[in-house]
């Protein structure tokens, strides 16, 4: 492996939280603008982060904190693997493990709101996991490998072949960004019946950790979206940012819906669309041959 191959992903990995934070700042600014407000400065998420870092941490149980670290570190592992262009399936498995840590953290406190949030978080994973796995499979059908390297070696943009899968991934993006209509487990703002659910018991430094993790997650999932147009990559990045803005728009024109609806959408639209996309590729004879 040449030093360029090593340094570039490493830099990307280190910049990921910065990018994620900035995106969240843009999110808040844009959301405010859409609501007829001015909104906070773009750097607001960083102010929030450092403020939380400098606050006392109140603890309900110690395990709660341990799992929060697990959530962060495992998400970082997934992002790291992503930038080092590893196997997509494994990346999503690691991401699932990270998500489970958040759930375990919420379960390890005897707080009804955490538990309700954790149960809903499980449902969210149930909603987006199949989409992510199947999207990886759909990409595989064109590139012939689950390695991200294969996407770059493929030489063509994937989006023209995978339009339906792309739409499905947007559903997963909405869930991961915790935006309406999918923000059932822990909404970005607290006015929710379960008081931010899984986040309820975190405070101070550990809430900051959770924010940081969220930034990593957003970068990862937007990165995945960028893979749909990896040649040239800048179009992919623009595409991902466009989808990010689209999610914000949807957030601002819809109410939060309930879990059964979310599951229905993600399984019918998400899974259904990707499977239809696979059939189309297969029928068009464009799938890899083994």
């Amino acid at each position: 492996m040449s030093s360029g191959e090593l340094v570039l992903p490493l830099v990307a990995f280190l910049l990921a939280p910065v990018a994620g934070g900035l995106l969240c700042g843009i999110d808040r600014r844009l959301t405010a603008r859409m609501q007829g407000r001015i909104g906070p400065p773009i750097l607001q998420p960083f102010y929030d982060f450092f403020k939380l870092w400098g606050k006392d941490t109140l603890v309900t149980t110690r395990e709660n904190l341990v799992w929060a670290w697990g959530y962060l570190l495992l998400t970082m592992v997934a992002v790291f693997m992503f930038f080092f262009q590893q196997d997509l399936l494994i990346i999503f498995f690691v991401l699932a493990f990270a998500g489970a840590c958040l759930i375990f953290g919420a379960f390890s406190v005897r707080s009804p709101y955490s538990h309700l949030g954790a149960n809903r978080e499980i449902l969210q994973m149930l909603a987006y996991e199949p989409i992510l796995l199947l999207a990886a499979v759909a990409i595989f059908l064109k590139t012939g490998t689950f390695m991200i390297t294969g996407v770059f070696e493929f030489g063509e943009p994937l989006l023209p072949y995978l339009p339906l899968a792309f739409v499905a991934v947007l559903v997963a993006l909405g869930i991961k960004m915790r935006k309406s209509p999918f923000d059932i487990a822990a909404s970005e703002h607290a006015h929710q019946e379960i008081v931010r659910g899984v986040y309820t018991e975190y405070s101070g430094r550990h809430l900051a950790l959770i924010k940081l993790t969220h930034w990593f997650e957003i970068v990862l999932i937007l990165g995945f979206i960028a893979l749909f147009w990896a040649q040239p990559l800048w179009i992919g990045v623009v595409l991902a940012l466009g989808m990010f803005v689209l999610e914000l728009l949807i957030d601002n024109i819809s109410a939060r819906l309930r879990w059964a609806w979310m599951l229905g959408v993600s399984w019918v639209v998400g899974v259904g669309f990707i499977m239809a996309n696979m059939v189309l590729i297969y029928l068009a004879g464009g799938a890899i041959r083994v």
Partner: protein
Amino acid sequence: MPRVTFPFGPQHPVLPEAIQLQLTCEDEKVVEVLPVIGYMHRGIERAAEKNPFPNNVFLCERVCGICSFIHGATYCQVIEKMMDIQIPPRADYLRVFWSELSRMHSHLLWLGLVADSFGFESLFMQCWRARERVLDILEITSGQRVIQSASVVGGVRRDLNVDLISRVREILRMFKQEWDAIIPVLRKDYTIKIRTVGKGVLPHDQAWKLGAVGPTLRGSGWDSDTRSSGYGVYGELEFKAVVESGGDSYARMLCRAREVTASYELVLKVLDSLPSGEISVKVKGFPDGEAVMCTEQPRGEVIYYARGNGTAYLERLKIRTPTFQNIVPLLTMLPGCELADVPVIVLSIDPCIACAER
């Protein structure tokens, strides 16, 4: 199936006020609801016996800061009824003017809160932006945004002049533009319908029997609005009640939304037909005897009962607020709903705990 028991309130981000529901859920289905109130009880009825009767206007306006003008006006009306005071027609019209503006601001506030409760943040913002217009009118006409203190026993405290009226009309025009943009969203938005249609159904006959009042009752198809009895000058303004028949949260929401429009029209009508003359009469003597007065607040019928004893102090002041009546219907709506619908259903009666607990 495990049952989950936890408190919903007193401090809860979706509840603007302190009330507690002890919820028992299976999965996310609510199976048992116990209301725990008393977190906001002050003891206003008793305090009203300790103040000279004209001062009670200020206390009554602070039973609830949202419908405060109507509380104050109703208190004045019950005393005027007891003492047989005829107030000037201009005062009556002005009371309707502020009452209907209060109703608009209250309903808009509520629409925002309910939008927030189902996670539609931008609708919340839009509703409250429109509401600021109404508050502007209240401020330029009475001097205060939320607690106007414009009513006194014997009439009102402030008058409108031509200049003010034209400014009010100007602001109302701007309000109408913003409001016309919001209404179709409330009526048609797919996600709002999913969250409100069929949620918290209060059947037609139950609504009456359980004592529901205001939009909660009218949302279940009852044409029952105290303003229809024509108190004050509502008779002259040809008031017609807004009725929806769905009985669910959606119907109650639409009912309130339409009442905003109706109130807007009433305000315009008042401005068009405002009679000239005095705005108050001098009050002589002390109240004696008893009287009861019903008026229509944004949340429904409010009943003031007063008994005087010939001194400056009242013997008894009893305030029956609409939310107090709507709690029992609420308790029948909740069991069987989903946890996610609890905030929507609770808000659908437009609870004002400060009112209910006094």
